């Protein structure tokens, strides 16, 4: 009898039509060689199935859902914004170097308190009866910033005026500002701070703080990088 060798793989897969399957079944009953071959083919299939699974080194599914149309323009915008913030950081750093008052923490606090003090004092003379020393806040912005570094007592007359002028403020006016009022005896000690405050107050806009621009540059730069990576991950 002829061996159905060519059908044995299809036989073990159950892929023969029923008549051919029955024929092979019948042959196997009587043929030890074909039974051996069937067993060997099954063993071969088992070995192929037992091969270890390789794992890809990266994600192979394209990111289709992560690239909406506005992503690319937003990345461009963030990149430009980051660049602009770096420029403003440098510009404001340069500006604060000229007036380095804003860079120190402790005097800044004192200056802020004194600023309120001065503001009140600045208004106070208007409410004072005639005869009180006349204070003209106008010279303050006109004074050179370097004047602030001059020792208090020997400061330029204009700055001195601004500081000392409001000193004899009326008790009423001082009562409105308790911290300032309690510091009244130390007016002379605070003179220098007050002078600094008066002079630098108009320039202490948050827009000139270089750290603000640096932080903004970092945030915008990080956002631009993240958006760029997201875009590159998308096909």
């Amino acid at each position, binding site marked *: 009898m002829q061996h159905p*060798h*060519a059908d*044995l*793989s*299809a036989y073990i*897969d159950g*892929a023969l039509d029923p008549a051919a399957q029955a024929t092979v079944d019948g042959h196997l009953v009587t043929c*030890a060689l074909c*039974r*051996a*071959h069937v*067993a*060997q*083919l*099954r*063993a*071969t*299939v*088992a*070995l*192929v*199935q*037992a*091969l*270890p*699974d*390789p*794992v*890809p*080194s*990266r*994600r*192979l*599914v*394209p*990111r*289709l*859902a992560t690239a909406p149309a506005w992503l690319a323009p937003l990345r461009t915008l963030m990149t430009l914004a980051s660049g602009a913030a770096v420029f403003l950081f440098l510009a404001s750093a340069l500006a604060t170097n000229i007036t380095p008052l804003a860079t120190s923490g402790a005097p800044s606090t004192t200056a802020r308190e004194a600023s309120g003090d001065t503001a009140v004092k600045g208004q106070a003379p208007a409410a004072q009866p005639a005869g009180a020393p006349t204070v003209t806040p106008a010279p303050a912005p006109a004074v050179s910033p370097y004047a602030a570094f001059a020792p208090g007592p020997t400061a330029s007359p204009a700055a001195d005026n601004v500081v000392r002028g409001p000193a004899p403020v009326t008790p009423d006016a001082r009562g409105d500002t308790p911290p300032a009022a309690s510091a009244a005896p130390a007016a002379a000690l605070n003179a220098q701070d007050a002078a600094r405050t008066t002079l630098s107050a108009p320039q202490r806009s948050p827009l000139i703080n270089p750290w603000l621009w640096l932080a903004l540059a970092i945030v915008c730069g990080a956002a631009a990088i993240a958006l760029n990576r997201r875009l590159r991950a998308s*096909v």
Partner: protein
Amino acid sequence: MSGAPDSEIELLIERARGGDTRAFEDLARREERALYRHALRIVGTTSDAEDIVQDALFSAWRSIGSFQGLSFRAWLFRIATNRALDQLRSRKRRPELPLDPPDDDDVTWAEPVAPGPDLTQLAGDREALAAVETALASLPAEQRTALLLRDVEGFPYEEIAVITSVEIGTVKSRIHRGRLAVRNVLIARGWRGPDG
């Protein structure tokens, strides 16, 4: 093979056909590993296999509107298999040559010449698995492809015929010849059959 119920797959396919990218990604992720192992065993290099699968999945997304007839899994395997075989052909200097010698029924069965370990007890044997890998790699690409689609991926003959665009008789022949070649390599290494 994914363990998800057919209804869930069908729903994802419908959503993907409607343009739902997340549904398609979900479907693709289920087959990513299988497609990769299949492509790797056809082309033999990991970077090529990764590129093939990534390209195939993107191509599948772009042409999902034309998906019909086959199971979704078979459709993905068809795209990836074609790309893998194209890659092999493009590597050859003379791409007009067929990857397979002409099919014929003149298949020889090498018989064991000396006693060796039982093939059925070798599934955990690294040496045996390495021998199987080597034997698979030495097969003509189209035999290897048919054998992998059947024995590793579990596709029925009918689907393998569609995936590889050949007649079912050719599929039957390729699978058998591939298995026999692997079996002969193992026999040549001294192993004997379970009943031998």
